[in-house]
């Protein structure tokens, strides 16, 4: 992520760029587990979308499509709240990459 210098920033801590936090990839501080989507079990109830604190559940119209790992922090709430008998979301271990805050 490119960091602006004082020459580029607006004076007076005004931010005219609504929603530009999407440039912060919170997925870089994921817990070490991540959710995996098992589409065939999904009933598209949208609970995972509702309860994801990091806006990482991808939907398209009335369907859940999976996860945006750029933002997913691996909290496990989606899997915990998924109501299907055969889970549509399972948490799996991944190799942890320490947050570097480096270049994209």
């Amino acid at each position, binding site marked *: 992520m490119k960091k602006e210098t004082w020459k580029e920033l607006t004076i007076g801590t005004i931010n005219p760029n609504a929603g530009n*936090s999407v440039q912060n990839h*919170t997925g870089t501080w994921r817990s070490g587990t991540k959710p995996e989507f098992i589409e065939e079990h999904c009933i598209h109830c949208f609970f995972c979308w509702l*309860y994801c604190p990091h806006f990482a559940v991808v939907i398209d119209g009335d369907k859940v499509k999976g996860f*945006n790992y750029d933002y997913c922090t691996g909290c496990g*709430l989606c899997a915990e709240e998924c109501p299907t008998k055969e889970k549509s979301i399972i948490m799996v271990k991944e190799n942890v990459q320490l947050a570097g805050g480096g270049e994209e």
Partner: protein
Amino acid sequence: MAKLKDIAQLEDRLVAGHGMCLGCGIPLIFKVALRATEDPLIISNATGCLEVCTTIFPRTAWNTTWVHSAFENAAATMAGIEAMYKSLKRNGKLPQDKEIKFLATAGDGGTYDIGLQALSGAMERGHNFVYLCYDNNAYANTGGQRSSATPFGASATTSPAGSEIPGKLQRKKDLTKILAAHNIPYVAQANPARWQDLYNKAKKAFEVEGPAFLNVLCPCPTEWKYDESMTVKLAKTAMDTCVWPLYEVDNGKYKINYTPKEKKSVTEWLKPQGRFRHLFKEENAWVIEEYQKQVDEDWEELHKLVEMTK
């Protein structure tokens, strides 16, 4: 009745890339509550987790007009903004029928404690805005100091459980009733685990003419010390134990919005949370007993208020 799939299609006014903790309850509340209006929305936000985590300059997670305020004056800031728009309309600078919604928000520290005077003043003057308190029971952003919303018996950094005290010795302040005593059009308690109820309450709050107050329980895995995947389950337990009853006061009439099939013991609420761990030592059994008594009393009082205002 709104359907989850339908409201999901609406634009997010709080977006990805904020820095709130894993499993934090705050985004769950705002995701739903802000969808309850589609009009232009202006938010004032006292400092606290929400403010700090959404606006690390030069980024913002707000996809709507948003104003920072100091810790104590989110309500005063919004009162000024609301009055200014009224004046713009009066002076013909904005069309009379232009709908704009206003929301002030803060945590429990910024609402129950330091912001109470500004809040009370704005409500009493009748400003037309919604105040939403996300009650995470502590000054979370500065490391978990106790507030007047911290529950009886909870360990916090300024009410640490140990050999001197078994956690906080004071009873939680009943802020919702204090707001109801302002005789404003709408006051309600909600919970992110019941999205439909939260959505309906936010909708009513935005639609009433005059001030409205929403007090929303907000689980905080970091300060309550529980597994972050359990945020919604814990919020449900708060309803089922009646630790956080869902009710509203609509033009003075009390109404309970959720009655558990079987009221659970407070221990189910206390057990998963590290901040109450010390209560399970033998010598602190009286604290749990006292806590249960408080919860029972409040629940009973609520029923009386419903009866009285029928």
